[in-house]
């Protein structure tokens, strides 16, 4: 759970409000520690998932403490020591952890200055900090290192020391290089996949062939007899192997697969009519927002359209991986989970252990774009490690496990209607969503949300995916409320009560489909009026920061100077992420040949104060390229029984030669609060591409992905 989620859930208590995650983790010593060698250890509960947060947080700490960034040592998050900051999700780490660290470090600096004043016998006001040395006006000096004393920070934060103003920033706001990149280019072991502990065994899980399959019988004779095999385990429909080497585990897995007999059932919907299927299911309906009379009188005309997105896979380059070790009934797990405390909660539930008997330590995995298989594989490893007699067990999923068994981003149907007057002005707007819930993260339900928990002999009922509350940005309904000045609207979200395919959070949650739908529909309305798409948005958006990103993207892309040519088109998309995060406008330029080729994406983004502008640009570029891949290519495929898109061949993603040029302009807002950048580009990119396809071909594709087949279907 991220902070907004926990505050919404009423965990805030009656304590005075402190900034960000400091509110629920008040002890200063939880956040930082000064060592006598001059190093400053900093702990955040937010974790590196490829987004560069470690570097941004180190910048913030170094800034407030007035030390070079090289003095900061960012410690990996661990339930044994780190602040509990819930889940690293929702583009909230800069807000939640960044503001906590900013205030904790400012206060720590003040405490050390007070100690220095006493030591040197000078007034605090005469002291300054230069690269970690504390210097008095008269020249006397000491340092953080010399004064290093854990007692000084063994107290609760008060947030009474104001952090630096933007004008005083030396490190914050500069494009410092990423701290993790050298290891990654030199091949220094850094990933959980690279852990190599003494005596470590290798494990693999025999995953069922389909989501509802039951293991009827398992002949493990051949697998057990293979060289290097240590154990074969079975518990209900969960089975796996432990071996001395990785190759032995894989060979045994193949043998085990041959010895398994499953009963499979047709539980999956028809992939070709998903949009209809979503609307035909039992649902729980929530009115997300209402403004004015959403069924307006005096409407001359009502226009409506339906948009869909398919199930999407995380498709990280690395399959999920974990290492687990049991020692005297206590469990230690090394995991690339986004939420180490939440994972611990569910491990405790599933293993019937007190949480304090479990330590979950974060180790980086490959890129994480939401709730992937990290938590599931940690539980798999814990289960199999029970047969390892105390030896650590490394378990890595297969590519097929990763594509077919990690939670999926849910398919969605979005229907929008607008009541228009005779001139085409919008009088009322209605937006309805049908989707599974967008979160089945661990740590929130009465039963564990861990994949194997549903496969055990004593199975736990898998929790039905829910939607995070509006205070946390919502789920299926994320960005469903338009960022425009329509006089009336009604937004309704229907959450499915059946879940044939496990769904959970994927980068930007419902915002991807909602923004795609809203911004496509707005283009349709503009086209009906003969209005330029940019002009239509500028007419309807009154917020200055919204208008600024629209204008900046349009200017940089030379929107007004676009030269129309056969088969080429440009389009624009805009949203303020979650209605409370970053403002982002995207202009897409495409060429429609045999396939759609996105040539260029020009993006303007406003994230408030950009802690590390190059980190922001990197996140926006990456998000836009990933969104282009979703928009043009991606779709989880299945028959009525099995997921069939379980290899790169059947789940293709955008390749180097297909990737568009991407230009990012960050609007300078040093005085404004920092908001996250990780998810802002997803929805606007999809909309901009779809709108550019319409501009090029006059064909409106409302069902993602925009493949040649879909264009032909839409044209007819």
């Amino acid at each position, binding site marked *: 759970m991220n902070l907004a989620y926990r505050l919404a859930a009423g965990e805030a208590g009656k304590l005075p409000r402190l900034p960000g995650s400091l509110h629920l983790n008040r002890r200063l010593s939880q956040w930082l520690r000064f060592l006598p060698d001059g190093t400053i250890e900093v702990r955040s509960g937010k974790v590196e998932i*490829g987004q560069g947060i470690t570097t941004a947080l180190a910048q913030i700490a170094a800034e407030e403490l007035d030390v070079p960034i090289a003095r900061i040592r960012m410690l990996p998050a661990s339930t044994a020591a780190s602040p509990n900051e819930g889940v690293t999700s929702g583009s909230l780490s800069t807000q939640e952890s960044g503001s906590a660290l900013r205030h904790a470090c400012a206060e720590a600096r003040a405490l050390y200055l007070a100690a220095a004043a006493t030591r040197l016998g000078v007034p605090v006001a005469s002291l300054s900090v230069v690269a970690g040395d504390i210097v008095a006006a008269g020249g006397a000096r000491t340092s953080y290192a010399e004064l290093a004393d854990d007692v000084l920070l063994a107290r609760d934060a008060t947030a009474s020391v104001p952090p630096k103003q933007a004008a005083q920033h030396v490190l914050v706001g500069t494009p410092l290089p*990423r701290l993790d990149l050298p290891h990654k*280019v030199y*091949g220094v072991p850094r990933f959980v996949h690279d852990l190599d502990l003494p005596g470590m065994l290798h494990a693999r899980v025999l995953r069922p062939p389909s989501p509802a399959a039951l293991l009827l019988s398992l002949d493990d004779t051949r697998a057990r007899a293979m060289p290097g095999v240590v154990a074969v385990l079975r518990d209900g429909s969960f089975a796996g192997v432990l071996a001395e080497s990785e190759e032995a585990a894989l060979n045994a897995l193949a043998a085990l697969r041959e010895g398994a007999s499953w009963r499979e059932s047709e539980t999956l919907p028809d992939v070709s009519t998903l949009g209809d299927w979503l609307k035909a299911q039992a649902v729980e309906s929530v009115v997300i927002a209402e403004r004015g009379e959403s069924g307006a009188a005096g409407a001359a005309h009502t226009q409506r359209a339906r948009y869909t997105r398919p199930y999407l896979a995380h498709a*990280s380059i690395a399959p999920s991986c974990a290492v687990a070790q049991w020692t005297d009934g206590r469990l230690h797990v090394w995991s690339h989970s986004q939420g180490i405390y939440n994972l611990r909660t569910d491990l405790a539930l599933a293993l019937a252990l007190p949480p304090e008997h479990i330590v979950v330590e974060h180790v980086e995995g490959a890129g994480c774009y939401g709730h992937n298989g990290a938590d599931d594989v940690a539980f798999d490893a814990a289960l199999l490690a029970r047969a390892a007699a105390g030896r650590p067990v490394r378990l890595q999923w297969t590519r097929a496990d990763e594509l077919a068994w990690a939670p999926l981003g849910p398919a969605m149907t979005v229907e929008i209607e607008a009541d228009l007057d005779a001139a085409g002005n919008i009088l009322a707007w209605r937006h309805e969503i049908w989707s599974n819930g967008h979160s089945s993260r661990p740590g929130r339900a009465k039963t564990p949300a861990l994949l194997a928990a549903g496969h055990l002999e004593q199975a736990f009922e898998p929790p039905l995916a829910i939607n995070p509350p509006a205070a946390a940005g919502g789920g299926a309904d994320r960005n469903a409320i338009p960022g425009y000045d329509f006089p009336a609207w009604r937004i309704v979200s229907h959450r499915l009560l059946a879940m044939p395919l496990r769904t959970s959070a994927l980068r930007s949650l419902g915002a991807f489909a909602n923004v795609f739908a809203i911004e496509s529909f707005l283009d349709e309305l503009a086209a009906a009026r003969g209005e330029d798409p940019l002009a239509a948005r500028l007419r309807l958006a009154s917020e200055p920061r919204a208008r600024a990103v629209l204008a900046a993207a349009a200017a940089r892309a030379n929107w007004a100077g676009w030269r129309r040519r056969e088969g080429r088109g440009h389009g624009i998309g805009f949203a303020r992420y979650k209605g409370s995060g970053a403002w982002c406008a995207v202009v897409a330029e495409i060429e429609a040949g045999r396939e759609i080729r996105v040539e260029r994406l020009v993006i303007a983004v406003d994230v408030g104060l950009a802690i590390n502008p190059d980190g922001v640009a990197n996140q926006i570029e990456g998000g836009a390229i990933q969104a282009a891949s979703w928009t043009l290519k991606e779709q989880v495929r299945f028959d009525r029984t099995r997921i069939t898109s379980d290899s790169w061949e059947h789940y293709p993603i955008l390749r*180097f030669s297909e990737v568009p040029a991407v230009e990012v302009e960050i609007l300078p807002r040093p005085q404004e609060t920092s908001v996250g950048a990780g998810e802002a580009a997803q929805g606007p990119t999809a909309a901009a591409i779809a709108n550019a396809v319409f501009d090029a071909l006059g064909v409106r594709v409302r069902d993602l992905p925009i493949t040649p087949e879909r264009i032909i279907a839409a044209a007819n």
Partner: protein
Amino acid sequence: MKSQSAGAAATVRIQVNGTEHEVSAAADTPLLYVLRNQLGLKAAHFGCGTGQCGACRVLIDGRAVASCDTPLWAAAGKHITTAEGLGDAAHPHPLQSALIAEQAGQCGYCLPGILISAAALLARRPRPTEAEVRAALDDNLCRCGSHNRIVRAVLRAAQAENIS
């Protein structure tokens, strides 16, 4: 070597990053596991096991190949280079320096395999065009969307190599 049956351990000599190694494993063991688990070289990463993503690429006698579906016997007696063998912090390869200069990476899991593909490209085409770089990297998947920075880094490294 080819005659070894699956599962029976064989002793195979391979040269990795300039060092001779004698490894003992079944002859059909994927080279990737030998590199990672026997020699402790963790740069080459497992991504798919079928040679479709490029994360496990190494140079074998100068050619970029997927080590996940190269059996050990096929590497016997050959010269293997992993990303560790290209350079390190003290003596970086121009491609490694260029990746850092361009801040070309997010999660970084794909980078060692990309370095290998790029090194093979620069060996045969010292001054590639951007389109040639993209084509050479097309069998390396990146999910974080660092493609354009990586392409710029390869072009930068090509410049640097030619100047030096």
